[in-house]
């Protein structure tokens, strides 16, 4: 394929997919180690009613009201989960399950009852995203990458996703040490005077921002997969947290690129006519990587059972 075709049609979705995957995979590492990996799942579900409310209140499919609605829904969900956990004295996982299924269902009802048929706001879009449609019409080839006017016409999702990724990467670097200590040993972290509660809230908020931004661009299937699969596969490749983060980033990008290419061309190679959903294929590839890591990764044995020596 030539640059004339590749740059406008494939490059933006590839980049958006890769940055979405990265933005989710980085906080995913810490969520996984804190046994909170499903919070990404929860967030990507609860933002649906928020996004619909944002649309209903403003009447336009525009980013900021919907992002604000999503953020509001995420906060409502966090408060609800905490309240149910305290009042009902039940497991946080159970509280999470109750809240996110209920809010997602409410979002679906809202969508069905409201007049959103004219716009591209529907359950399918929420789940699978619309990666293939994020094209760059002004591009004419590789040269367009140097053309300021053409660059301005890149899909706004790309800029948003890059900004979110950069912010998350910088924050993770800045708070690496306290975040690591608080994740490994919360009690000890408190005696060091570290703001343990703020760190854990900050992590969930960062995950929520990544989820909302990625959800808007690529749908919730990728969000859920990228929070869990690349970090889980990376854990099986190394016994050091820094290396784990590197592996998870590599797996995230690999999933995004390979998934996008396979979705677009895989069926053609097999003799079928149509391409399949890129979001679904990216999530599938990340799952396959996890399976391969679980079978062949060098650190895959459960080391919790101490080896006697």
């Amino acid at each position: 394929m030539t640059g004339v075709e590749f740059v406008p049609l494939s490059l933006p979705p590839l980049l958006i997919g890769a940055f979405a995957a990265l933005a989710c995979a980085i906080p995913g590492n810490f969520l996984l180690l804190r046994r909170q990996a499903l919070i990404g799942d929860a967030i990507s579900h609860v933002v649906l009613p928020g996004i619909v409310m944002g649309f209903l209140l403003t009447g336009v499919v525009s980013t900021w009201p919907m992002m604000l609605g999503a953020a509001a829904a995420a906060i409502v969900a966090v408060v609800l989960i905490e309240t149910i956990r305290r009042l009902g004295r039940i497991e946080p996982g159970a509280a999470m399950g109750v809240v996110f299924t209920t809010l997602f269902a409410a979002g679906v009802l809202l969508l069905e009852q409201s007049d959103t048929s004219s716009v591209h706001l529907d359950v399918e879009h929420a789940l699978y995203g619309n990666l293939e449609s994020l094209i760059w019409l002004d591009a004419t080839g590789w040269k367009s990458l140097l053309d300021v006017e053409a660059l301005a016409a890149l899909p706004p999702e790309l800029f948003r996703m890059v900004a979110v990724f950069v912010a998350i990467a910088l924050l993770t670097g800045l708070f690496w040490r306290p975040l690591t200590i608080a994740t490994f040993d919360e009690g000890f972290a408190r005696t060091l005077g570290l703001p343990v509660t703020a760190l854990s809230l900050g992590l969930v908020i960062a995950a929520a921002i990544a989820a909302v931004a990625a959800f808007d661009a690529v749908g919730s299937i990728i969000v859920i997969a990228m929070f869990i699969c690349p970090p889980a596969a990376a854990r099986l490749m190394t016994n050091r947290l820094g290396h784990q983060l590197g592996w998870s980033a590599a797996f995230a990008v690999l999933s995004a690129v390979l998934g996008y290419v396979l979705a677009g061309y895989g069926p053609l190679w097999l003799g079928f006519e149509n391409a399949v959903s890129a979001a679904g294929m990216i999530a599938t590839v990340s799952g396959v990587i996890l399976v391969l890591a679980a079978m062949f990764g060098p650190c895959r044995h459960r080391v919790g059972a101490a080896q006697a020596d």
Partner: protein
Amino acid sequence: MELDLATDNGQPRPETTRDDSPFAIRGLTVSYGDKPALFSVDATFPAAAMSAIIGPNGAGKSTLLKAALGIVKPVSGRVTMLGQPLKRALDRVAYVPQRASVDWDFPARVIDVVLMGLSRELGLLRRVRPHHLDKAMTCLARVGMDGFADRQIGQLSGGQQQRVFLARALAQQAEVYLLDEPFAGVDAATEKAIIGVLKSLRDDGKTVVAVHHDLATVTEYFDHVFLINQTRIAEGPTVETFTAANLQATYRGRLALQQIDRLAG
């Protein structure tokens, strides 16, 4: 495996001004939901001594330490460390949690865990320099674990993990050391290594307070005991306080009488 049980301390330590009691608790009350855990507990631990917190399961021993350190929020109570409110003294307190309280499958090496004890020096972004590594290695050597610096922590035995936790506390160069069941489920070599390090800390003038389970070793290891069963039962020097009557009051019939007689002589 060969163990180096050297427990000498060649480390220079800063001189400190000594206040009355390095670790005092007043009216500490803690509850978990509706379940009361501690009722208005007063405790005063002496300086330059090894103290044991003793009581049956569910007596609130660990909770006492956690609440005193602000890990668990107390309903009421006041804690003074080194003559100051807890917050101002935290940088001179080292806490060794129960080994089972963390996930040892965490992706970290032994040296990474010990370096956590230097995090006040390292701050947010300072790089780990050779002298930080030297310090961490010295602490590992004091607990006989310097040969394991690059091991993943999950590959260690329980006793080795406990010694890594102690090395992390040593790296903090604190005045007060609070340990939650440091001898729980460890091998004999580890117990010997740990008690050697704790005694050398005491001989250096540090204050050591440990939640302790094994009544048989109390008189041998500890200078001072604090008996607790949701409220304070007794506290004082081991020889005066670790008596049959006090143990009976603490364990409320959960220990056989002849057991108590044997322990408390």
